[in-house]
């Protein structure tokens, strides 16, 4: 199968700067700086149909176009590599294998938006990826591909790496800007949107690692080529799916967007582990409502997954077998969110521990059927929270109520977890 981001991968090690260049690396940057205006670069990205790979799926080129043209003062690009959503590890796999596509992609994005200083915000625990990026930045700068007057074009661009100290909320784009500024990482009110007023008050674009790393290939090969790498006519490009849980080969695969869920699990993942059968999965990371065997034929692309009642999210698929208690799984997920709540707003700070408490009661067999309605109401209430963390936390609860209400009732009826012997 054709690979885009993984095409330079070398077994067991990171690709070198020389290899990346011989294999066509940095030709997109050279092409853009020699023969394309920033607007043209932006237009190609818009035409490619690339949608953000960080979770929300917002069209990347369109996001860039929101940055006002002629505002004085500095503007910024932030590459989001916080990646702390459980079940998600694609950006780490990519950067451990190849940091260069991202460096080239960031430089192209900066050119398209008129940014001269970009930051890569990377989580604690990804020290190897951060070291690869630092090395790639020095190598690119020494070769005149980064820094001042890149390739004699008059365009300047610097990239800094910021290694965080571990907190999931730092991945939310406005909290991230506070974190970068050295403030406590509570989210900011929107509007004003980052494209108008972001980092240090300047226009700011926040993009995910995978979104930016695709840019060089789109510029080099054109939007039609990129679109056609997907599995369906509606989808555009390929996606890093990272699979974990009860499959035979849990790993990160680059697959065409729009590939069916069942084909991903049955194909590269090698099916379920011997002796186990598929019960459910989180289709796109910890905040997405469950899919069940009924969703086996859903194309894994933004709109079809949304239409089926969940979200493509980060592409982190967590698979559960027939022995998994879905109440217990949901409890684990909501506990994560309750602990990671930044504490800024009441619905989330107070509401999530309450939901944890309810799920603990049900899981331990002490619950009653009224609790189901209370849970359902909380899915509504938590939409009143200040940022997307709290509604995200309720994604799995929503899935639990829609697909596994019977399992909750069984807990209540038996006075104990039916999955435990």
């Amino acid at each position, binding site marked *: 199968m054709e690979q885009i981001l993984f095409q330079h991968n070398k077994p067991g090690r990171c690709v070198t700067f020389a290899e990346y260049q011989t294999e066509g690396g940095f030709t997109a940057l050279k092409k853009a700086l020699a023969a394309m205006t920033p607007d043209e670069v932006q237009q190609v990205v818009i035409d490619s149909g690339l949608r953000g790979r960080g979770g929300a799926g917002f069209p990347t080129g369109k996001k860039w176009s929101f940055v006002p043209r002629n505002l004085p003062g500095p503007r910024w690009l932030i590459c989001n590599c916080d990646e702390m959503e459980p079940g998600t590890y694609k950006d780490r796999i990519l950067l451990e294998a190849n940091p260069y596509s991202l460096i080239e992609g960031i430089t192209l994005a900066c050119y398209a938006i008129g940014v001269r200083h970009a930051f890569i915000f990377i989580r604690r*625990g*990804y020290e190897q990826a951060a070291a690869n990026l630092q090395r790639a930045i020095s190598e690119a700068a020494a070769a005149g591909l980064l820094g001042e007057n890149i390739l004699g074009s008059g365009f300047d661009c610097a990239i800094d790496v910021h*290694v965080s100290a571990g*907190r999931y909320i730092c991945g939310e784009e406005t909290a991230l800007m506070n974190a970068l500024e050295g403030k406590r990482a509570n989210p900011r009110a929107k509007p004003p949107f980052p494209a108008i007023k972001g980092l240090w008050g300047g226009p700011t674009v926040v993009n995910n690692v995978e979104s930016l790393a695709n840019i060089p290939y789109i510029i080099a090969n054109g939007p039609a080529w990129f679109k056609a790498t997907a599995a369906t006519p509606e989808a555009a490009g390929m996606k890093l799916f990272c699979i974990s849980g009860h499959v035979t080969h849990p790993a990160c695969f680059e697959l065409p967007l729009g590939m069916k869920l069942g084909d991903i699990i049955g194909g590269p993942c090698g099916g379920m582990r011997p002796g186990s059968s598929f019960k459910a999965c989180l289709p796109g990371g*910890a905040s997405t409502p469950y899919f069940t065997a009924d969703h086996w034929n859903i194309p894994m692309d933004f709109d079809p997954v949304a239409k089926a009642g969940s979200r493509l999210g980060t592409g982190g698929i967590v698979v559960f077998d027939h022995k998994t208690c879905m109440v217990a799984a949901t409890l684990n997920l909501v506990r*994560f969110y309750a602990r990671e709540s930044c504490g800024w707003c009441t619905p989330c700070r107070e509401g999530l521990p309450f939901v944890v408490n309810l799920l603990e009661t049900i899981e331990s067999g002490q619950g009653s059927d009224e609790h189901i309605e209370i849970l359902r109401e909380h899915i509504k209430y938590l939409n009143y929270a200040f940022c997307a963390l709290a509604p995200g936390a309720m994604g799995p609860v929503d899935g639990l109520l829609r697909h596994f209400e019977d399992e909750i009732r069984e807990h209540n009826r038996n006075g104990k977890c039916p999955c435990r012997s």
Partner: protein
Amino acid sequence: MIPETMRQELQDRISSAITNREAAVDVMKALQTHYGWLTDEAVVEAAGLLGLSPLQVEELATFYEMIYRRPVGRYVIHVCDSISCWSMGGESLLRQIAGLLKVTVGATTPDGLFTLLPCCCLGNCGQAPAMMIGNSIYGGVTSLEKATDILHQHRRNT
């Protein structure tokens, strides 16, 4: 007190930042590496370097999972308790390590070598259950032997 060379290095880092406090996380991490944890003295020193009040540094320090505002052992063992690891037996890994070290979760061994803490997803979900010691991430720690081996490696290094 931190050594003069370290103070100079941190001052250089701060002056290369867009604003002083942009360097706050780097400064806290450097002081934590020096003292073993972010001591009260370190909070005051960080505040002095960054031009913040100690309370402002405290506000940041207590926000992050990997900044320790209480004494910890020489090695902090972070065992992932998020969903992929949970599905692959992360809870029993945490219990097993607590058993091997004879400490409760959150505590430090009497010899001051290990502190055991649960933590959020380490981005190693495909090789669950996962844990981190220092900058090293371990995956697929499904057997008692493997966990014992990892702990022994660290004991030997001291």
